[in-house]
């Protein structure tokens, strides 16, 4: 799969990588962390998460660290950190551009 496709992340992809930034987690741990982090706004289905984790692992963004009681634990790699950071910067610029445009509209 071409890396180009992962240069821009969907919201669910973004939060999965965010969840793996601090510590290794298994699938359900990621689902719970994302739901808690977003106050229930973003809920990732088990099937969707499984497919995305497989894709991230194939692309080298995350790595399997452990398997315990049938649960796989992942942590993101250097490449995953880079992709996450790029997405965060992109979103920050997007918010800043939006703030400029909306402030100008307020005072116009």
């Amino acid at each position, binding site marked *: 799969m071409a890396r180009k496709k992962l240069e821009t992340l969907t919201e*669910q992809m973004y939060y999965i990588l965010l969840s793996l930034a601090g510590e290794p987690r298994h*699938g359900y741990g990621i*689902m719970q962390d994302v739901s808690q982090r977003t106050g229930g706004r973003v809920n*990732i*289905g*088990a*099937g*969707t998460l499984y*497919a995305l984790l497989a894709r991230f692992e194939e692309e080298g963004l995350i790595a399997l660290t452990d398997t315990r009681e049938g649960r*796989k634990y992942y942590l993101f790699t250097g490449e995953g950190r880079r992709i996450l950071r790029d997405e965060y910067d992109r979103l920050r610029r997007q918010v800043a551009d939006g703030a400029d445009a909306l402030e100008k509209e307020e005072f116009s």
Partner: protein
Amino acid sequence: MKETCWKLFCYLVIDHRAAQAWLNRMAEDGWELVHIYFGLFARFRRTERTDLSYFLDWADPKYLETSDYLQLCSDAGWEPVQTVDYLNLYASRPGTSPAPIQTDSELEYRRFRQKALRRMALGGVIAFVVTPLILLPLLLLPSSANVSPQEIAAGLLSSSLTSSLILFCLPFWLAGGLAYLALLAGRLLRWRQAVKDGRQLPVPTSRTAGAWGNLKLLGEFSLSLMLLLLLPDALLNGAISLSNVIGLLIGCAISISLYRDNSRLFRRVLCTAGCLALLLLCILLHSPVRNAFPGRLPPSPVLADTRVINETRADTLLGSHVKWEEFFPRPDMGDSKIGYPASVTVEAQTWVSPVLADWAFGTPPSNMVAVPGRGDTWQFTGNTAEHGGYRLRRGNTLLTLSYYGDLPADPLSAALA
């Protein structure tokens, strides 16, 4: 109040959302799915649960879901119930209100394309390639063998129950297949648009899904009937090839060893092997059963002192067909046909109604001339003086005699006698 109930579970794979919605409506009414038998008959039992919900997801029949995937689904609150066709059925665990298993429309659409659509399209292409290949000989044979399509169809209808059903159902199968491909294309276009718009995949109405489900049921019923008719065809009409069945059994044996780790496919192959074994038994019992039931047209020698060989007999609901050869055995050649002085091939066809008989027999070919003094009797001559024949129609029965060689008696007189 009833504790169990039975319902028909009949949805196209592409309408799995409608099937899911139906299961959830049943759950709201207090019914919990126990099992779906033969992919069609769903058994429910009463439940006190108010938090029961279902999710249906695409499945690849060749592979069982991995244990870590099932563990993840279980952690999330979904327990697997059953796999039906290309669908995995999950039920929510008591005390949980889990998020749907699939929450990304684009991913779901792509998974459908990878797991189900390619196989469906392949099946459709095979059907539309194999069907013409089957029909091609029927189209080419008439011109090469001076046989009309009418005669071919009549031959099939009078000699094989399975072929009769196939001839009858083929236009409906082709029309249904084309309609299904059109439906598939329409649904996929709507899904693609939903993905582009960032919406959830649309759910077809229960009415539409139900109508297509009924058509699917009709198609599956006709296919099941066709397979079932193979048994009487093997038992009575000798219409099934022993070598083909043995070949298929060998294929099953190989598949059993390949799919030993996949319980779903293993069971399916085992069931197929069982049916083939039953078919094999019917083929082996054909001779004694046929001798016990001579049918509408029991063959008998036309000429005296002849030996009958290559005898075939068939009876269907619409007609019957028999064929045999008679030859004069030479004492020094035993049963060998080589070098015998003359032979007669007799073929007879009869129908249950005069309408069918009129259609099947049609008008005699142009190379036949009416025999004077004998109504409904025609004669034809071959390339040599020793080769010729007769065609007789009596009521709903048509008899064709082809002779070769120097016969001791006129086969027509012997046949009329």
